[in-house]
């Protein structure tokens, strides 16, 4: 009884402590970006000029860079993560292939992102350059597409493990009902499993999106670090996270530093919202599952 109370107390305190840290981060980000907020206001979001010389700062190029790379990465990874999830969650729940595949995806998830960056630089960049030469566009090699590809590979283990958890929650008696009506495995997956888990998979996508959004290292290495609005998927660009990583140590002027922190503030807000919504949808999915299934 007494230990129970103490335990509860500890839980409460650590909970409050986490919340406190969260608030503290927000406050310091806000303080740090105050100068930039005062100078540029909301216009900061929509201005496409980022110029340390004239001291004009706007984050549209980075917002665009982040959104485009993340969305492309998500689109590329979706078919892979969904098929891995279906393969492991429904087709081959046990056995050698399943163990092998889930072990491999776990391994992929554990690789530090700087390694993905190297991989992107040494393997993808030359390949993309060849492609660009073939398509008669400037052969930078680095840029949006390269970053998206690296990000896609990085998301796959994460997205597929969420999707797998969701797919496992599909009630077995619905799947059985499907078979008993003469459906094949493919038909059961397509018309029962996927529709049932749609909202959960959507939430998983959102969470993976949040992941891609905040990724720093690998993206910084292969995106080209170019502070203008991207013109095509081959353009070098910068994301919110990568411009911070790139310029933070070199920023000498106060307003430059403050603007970088200002980007950080927005990154914090956006990723927080994405994760928040994603987690709510997943929780709702799990509760629904318990009631109906």
């Amino acid at each position, binding site marked *: 009884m007494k230990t129970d109370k103490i335990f509860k107390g500890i839980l409460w305190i650590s909970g409050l402590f986490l919340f406190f840290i969260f608030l503290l981060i927000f406050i310091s980000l806000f303080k740090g970006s105050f100068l930039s907020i005062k100078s540029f206001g909301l216009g900061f979001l929509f201005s496409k000029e980022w110029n340390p010389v004239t001291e004009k700062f706007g984050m549209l190029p980075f917002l665009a860079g982040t959104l485009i790379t993340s969305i492309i990465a998500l689109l590329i990874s979706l078919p892979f993560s969904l098929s891995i999830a279906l393969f492991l969650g429904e087709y081959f729940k*046990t056995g050698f292939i399943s163990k092998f595949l889930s072990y491999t995806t776990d391994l992929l998830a554990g690789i530090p992102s700087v390694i993905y960056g190297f991989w992107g630089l040494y393997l993808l960049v030359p390949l993309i350059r060849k492609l660009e030469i073939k398509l008669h566009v400037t052969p930078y090699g680095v840029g949006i597409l390269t970053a998206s590809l690296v990000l896609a590979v990085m998301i796959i283990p994460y997205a597929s493990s969420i999707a797998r958890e969701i797919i496992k929650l599909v*009630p077995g008696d619905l799947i059985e*009902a499907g078979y008993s*009506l*003469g*459906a*094949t495995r493919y*038909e059961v997956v397509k018309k029962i499993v996927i529709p*049932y888990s749609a909202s959960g998979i959507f939430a998983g996508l959102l969470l993976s999106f949040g992941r891609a959004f905040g990724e720093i290292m690998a993206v910084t290495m292969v995106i080209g670090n170019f502070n203008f609005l991207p013109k095509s998927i081959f353009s070098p660009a910068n994301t919110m996270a990568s411009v911070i990583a790139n310029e933070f140590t070199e920023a000498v002027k106060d307003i430059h530093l403050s603007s970088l922190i200002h980007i950080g503030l927005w990154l914090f807000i956006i990723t927080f919202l994405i994760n928040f919504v994603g987690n709510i949808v997943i929780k709702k999915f799990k509760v629904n599952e318990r009631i*109906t299934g």
Partner: protein
Amino acid sequence: MEKILRIKNLYASYTDENWILKNINFEIFKNKITAIMGPSGCGKSTLLRCINRMHEVIPGAKVKGEIYLQDKNIFEMHPIIVRRKIGMVFQRPNPFPTMSIYNNVIAGYILTGVKLKKEEKDRIVEESLKKAFLWDEVKDVLHRKGTFLSGGQQQRLCIARALAMKPEVILLDEPTSALDPKATRMIEELLVELKKDVTIILVTHNQSQAGRISDYTAFLYMGELLEYGETEKIFTVPEHPKTQEYLSGKFG
């Protein structure tokens, strides 16, 4: 009397080591209700699931022997064809929560990609729901999801879903065990009505239910078929001592 199913030397297991069903032999009569009874874990569900080849869906499960539907061995037919001819209703009502009531009824066609004309669909839905005693209750809400229906209504929806495929046989695994007495009664009446069109095999724990509606009863004990015959005879003068014990409630 016409026999629709003949089960010969049937063995079934979930793993290599031991057979859960051992040498089952019996014949099911057409347009009759056959009850399968026996203590918990004796293999009733396993037997039922062999008949529409659902047993094989479980990884590692094995079957040996023959089951003839009319004159064809179901193990030589494609399982999908077998399942279309032999429908199934489960213990817990399991309508598809992502589909409307209407689509639930024709789920078998939707799942297997059979394209039907609108009038055809309407006709199948109405016919099946009427046969399942559910039409009057849901005819105005056909396009809503079926999740707000009561347990009994959901189970009748599942019966309609099975009927929509025009099966020759319907297998029901304790279809009323999750329902209240009133809903149970309704399903019993419905089954008696249905046997004009289809042959019914019913696993039940409920002796009075078997007594009320079944024509034949099979008594299963530890994976063996101990006794099979007309329900009246089995309930009044059981031959096997185990059947006697079971019916007098000594175990269950």
